[in-house]
């Protein structure tokens, strides 16, 4: 009898453990919200600043919401960046190498995941080891090589290494593909072989569908990384090809040149608001891409993490 009483007593009394549990939960939420805000802070500030007039920028009373919404910041920034045509160039520069890189890394990864061959482990180790080689150590001879081949200052300087699996961070993509192709059941390929399917059919009809999320995450990450690359881009393309992030680098100079030519003496300067509007515009396509495909991004990486290390 006393046992039953105690049991029911526990039910009604808010015991120490549940209080602690709720407390930690609240603490965790607070931590997450604060760090989340810290993460987003530069972006939020950028958005708010991009709408400010020059008066709002210096007004100490305005910290987040500007008094007047200055949309002309955006039109000016668009003009300076040459937004339409530069956007097309940027898409071109990031999608094409990404596509080639994904395909070649898929083939490389497939070979390692599916076939047993001599020196396979050494080769795989070598591929992974290339990840830590900084591009600084290869860029000078590459630069000279492209100059001799006559492909410097054109997109081919990106495409050529990508075709041979030496594109940006390709070691990661090979790793992703190895992990995804390893999930392919051996019995399936054996059955297909017995039914007379050749290796190419097995690759396209069995392996590719199995590794579809792998293709997706590789392509997306590859696009994003090529999009954001400016260091090698400015070296290999010179002034010939300018992507959006590259144009941001000398945004202020371009702005001053353009304004002094057209609206001299109107007091328009490349203030922070215009610069932030430009930054926002450059980020916008990527943000859109992320919000459309965020599930693919996150699940792709998580699956990579789960299947192997």
């Amino acid at each position, binding site marked *: 009898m006393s046992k039953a009483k105690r049991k029911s007593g526990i039910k009604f009394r808010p015991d120490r453990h549940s209080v602690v549990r709720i407390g930690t939960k609240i603490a965790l939420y607070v931590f997450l919200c604060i760090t989340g805000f810290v993460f987003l802070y530069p*972006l939020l500030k950028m958005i708010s600043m991009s709408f400010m007039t020059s008066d709002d920028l210096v007004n100490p009373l305005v910290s987040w919401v500007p008094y007047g919404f200055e949309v002309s910041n955006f039109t000016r920034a668009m003009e300076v960046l040459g937004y339409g045509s530069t956007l097309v160039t940027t898409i071109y520069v990031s999608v094409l190498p990404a596509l080639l890189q994904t395909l070649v890394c898929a083939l490389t990864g497939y070979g390692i995941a599916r076939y047993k061959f001599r020196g396979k482990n050494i080769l795989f180790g070598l591929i992974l080891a290339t990840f830590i080689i900084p591009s600084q150590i290869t860029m000078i*001879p590459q630069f000279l090589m492209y100059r001799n081949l006559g492909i410097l200052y054109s997109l081919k300087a990106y495409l050529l*290494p990508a075709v041979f*699996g*030496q594109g940006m961070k390709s070691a990661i993509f090979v790793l992703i593909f190895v992990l995804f192709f390893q999930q392919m059941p051996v019995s399936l390929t054996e059955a297909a072989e017995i039914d007379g399917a050749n290796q190419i059919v097995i690759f396209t009809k069995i392996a590719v569908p199995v590794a579809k999320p792998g293709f997706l995450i590789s392509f997306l990450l590859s696009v994003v990384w090529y*999009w954001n690359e400016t260091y090698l881009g400015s070296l290999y393309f010179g002034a010939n090809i300018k992507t959006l992030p590259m144009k941001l680098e000398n945004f202020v100079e371009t702005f001053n040149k353009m304004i002094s030519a057209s609206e001299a003496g109107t007091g328009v300067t490349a203030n922070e608001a215009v610069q932030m509007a430009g930054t926002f515009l450059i980020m916008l396509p990527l943000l859109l891409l992320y919000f459309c495909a965020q599930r693919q*991004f996150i699940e792709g990486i998580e699956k990579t*993490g*789960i299947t192997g290390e």
Partner: protein
Amino acid sequence: MSKGRISRSTRNNIRGWLCEVPWLIGFAVFTLYPIASTLKMSFDSVVISATGLVTEPVGIDNYRKAFLGDVTFPKILLNYVGEIVLQVPIVIVFAIAVALILSKEIRGRGIFRTLFFLPVIIISGPIIDKFIDMGMMAIQGADTNTVIKSVLDMLPETAGGLLKTLIDSFVMTLWFSGVQILLLLSALQKIDKPMYEAAYMDGASGWECFWKVTLPNLRSMIVICIIYTIVTISTFDTNEVITTIQGNMFQTSLGLGYSSAQAWIYFVVLLLVIGFFMLLYGPRKEAIYGNTKAAKLELKRARRLKKAQDRNLKKLYRESKRYRD
């Protein structure tokens, strides 16, 4: 059927290597050759002229110049090492903390995962530059905080400068942790639940569980994350060392030879940094079983046993051979 005559393993050998052909060519042409070429050039004086490259061997002059002649380069390099030694633990600890929280049943997990991964998508040199210029990446209020100010004043110049850059780009440091959070999160999901149950049964608290179960299980993933962090920070566009190397490429007074030497120095330093962190927290084979004394003894005994068995087998083999002869 000619196909039948080749054994399966030979066929697999051929097919496997065929798949690797593009990568192997690329590796030889775009990685191996350039690395060797950079090494060779680092001992030359190379200048681009109208007629082509003018190369002249100068021995180790380039390296001597980098360390003794150049005023800024050793300083930049030292700054880089200091920064990365501070940044990597911040990124890793932060990533582990966030991953641990997100692995719990919490409402809005998806939103937070999306949020923490967002920087990976938008992080690029010029954008970060703009943000740092405008002070958006700094710990807010740090520049007016008297405590931080007095600490900065107290420290010697180099250490103070390091701390200042760390504060000014603190959010950027956190922004580097997007991929790591997701990787650690998936590694956390892989840990066997019974292990925790057994630990609780033995009276371990949550805190003890973290140190004795979670962390050893995460070890290999943490090692991967450390390497990933070091490499991404080191090759990021705004890194002062790599911008200096690129800038020197086109200075006729210094030339390609000098920047090659700098690139090699940088590579070696990068490897040393990775080595340093691996010494600090490297992969360990028996990590999962804990490094208790009993486990180590057990392992030793097992190894000794195996050795004895091998010896016996060899002995048997030798004896049988003698009989056959």
